[in-house]
């Protein structure tokens, strides 16, 4: 009855506690970031005058781009087809190689040393961007589509291998146990216990990777690894902006078609 008896307590204030509790650390970090930004801006010579002077040039270049010049379409087509070849070949080889890699990198399938070795490979491949791998392989195997194909194959094993390994680690262990209980060896357990559970995801990953490889194959030419990217790079080098624009439009069209097809197929199988 006398809950509110007596003088009401002074209103108690409340504020959300700061994310970093230590005030020295909190303000110190903020100051450090501010100082670094000032230093960085100073260091790269961010020059407003230079930016303004560049605007008319950019507009002029954009003007030179239209109308796009498709008159040299055989060259354009050749580049596109080479990109397509690179993408399809490297996907086909890459996704097949991914299967043993994924199994080796799944903790529930192999002993720890094997697992660690395969995880190391995946870590390495997935850390390096495609363009970096391509630069290295172009140095090793020379200019052209071959280096590009190798690059995309390696990158595909990293991508599909990692995601498939994760899928294998998440399978229902009961089904595997049942197949083991029939007296099947490791390979047959893989075939009847693991493969059926991971197949839909694997097919989805393959198509997704084909889509990614198509996009990547259009850019690897810039570092000399073949495909339409090389044609684009040369066109820019010769100031043929209208031809460059035609190439860009073709790339955009190819990527859009690839993405649409990949999305449509994946929606149907999962």
């Amino acid at each position, binding site marked *: 009855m006398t809950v509110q008896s007596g003088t009401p307590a002074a209103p108690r204030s409340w504020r959300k506690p700061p994310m970093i509790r230590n005030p020295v650390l909190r303000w110190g970090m903020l100051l450090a970031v501010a100082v670094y930004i000032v230093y960085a801006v100073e260091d790269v010579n961010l020059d407003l005058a230079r930016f303004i002077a560049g605007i008319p040039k950019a507009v002029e270049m954009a003007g030179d781009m239209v109308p796009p010049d498709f008159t040299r379409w055989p060259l354009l087509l050749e580049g596109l087809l080479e990109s397509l070849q690179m993408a399809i070949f490297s996907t086909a080889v890459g996704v097949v190689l991914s299967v043993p890699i994924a199994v080796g990198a799944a903790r529930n399938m192999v002993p720890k040393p094997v697992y660690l070795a395969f995880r190391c490979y995946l870590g390495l491949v997935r850390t390096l961007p495609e363009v970096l791998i391509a630069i290295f392989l172009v140095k090793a195997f020379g200019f052209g589509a071959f280096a590009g194909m190798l690059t995309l194959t390696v990158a595909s094993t990293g991508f599909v291998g990692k995601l498939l390994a994760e899928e294998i680690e998440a399978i229902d262990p009961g*089904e595997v146990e049942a197949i*083991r209980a029939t*007296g099947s060896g490791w390979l047959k357990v893989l075939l009847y216990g693991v493969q059926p559970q991971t197949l839909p995801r694997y097919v989805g990953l393959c198509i997704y990777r084909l889509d990614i490889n198509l996009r990547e194959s259009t850019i690897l030419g810039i570092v000399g690894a073949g495909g339409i990217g090389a044609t684009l790079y040369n066109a820019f080098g010769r100031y043929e902006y209208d031809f460059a624009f035609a190439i860009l439009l073709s790339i955009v069209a190819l990527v859009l078609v690839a993405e649409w097809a990949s999305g449509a197929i994946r929606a149907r199988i999962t």
Partner: protein
Amino acid sequence: MLQVDSLTKTYPTGQKALDGCSLTVETGQVVAVIGPSGAGKSSLIRCVNRLVEPTQGRIWLDGTDVTRLGRNQMARMRRHMGMIFQEYNLVERLTVMENVLSGRLGFVSFWQAFLRRFPQADIDRAFELLDQVGLSGYENSRADALSGGQRQRVGIARALMQEPRILLVDEPTSSLDPRTARTILGLIADLARERGLPALINIHDVGLALMFAERVVGLSQARVVFDGVPDQLDEHILTRIFGEADWRQTVRHAGDDERAMAAANQADDGAPVSPHADGIGSV
């Protein structure tokens, strides 16, 4: 014949699942292993086919010391041990036929398994077994399209497909409704007796155990605390196995169940027995 001699299993966590358990199962004997959850029932049958590695003790199947076998020898030994699981553990995305034929995986080559080219004799046998468990016509259905009772029937067919020398059955009915549970357990017991197979059946439903098993083994806290025929099982012993509770109902009901089933079986005589007792026909 299965002999288990002072079997002990200690998990890496330090938990003792089995502590010096011994038991002998004669050929053709259907043994129910009862006990509360965590008493070690699952560990016991998984030690027999070494899906769980025993810590100590010996297990013999028809004179072979199972605990001394190497990895490959053990895989070969498992071919002769049929196992039926609580959650059925069918490969969900494969067809009923593939699941049943997977019982032959230990006997066929990798390529036969890969290309699904099983010997004709195996295919004939699979059809025959599907017929016996009441699933004829379901060979091309995918396992994940079946009801619980149907799935367990596939599980039974898969285990028998191995032509096993022993049947290890882990809580075959816990995921099923009471009526289906009876049908399934009855089917397992009948098929085991027909083939003269020793069967070790884990089950926590005492009533069901009393109905279908000719021998009951009680596990409590990792030890065998009872081993005898169903008639010997009274309130006293149930208390020893499961702990203090009012067991009069359980014991009486089990007796009633038996009488009811006997009456039902008599009534069924002459009438065609429906293999679709758990609602298969309505799919």
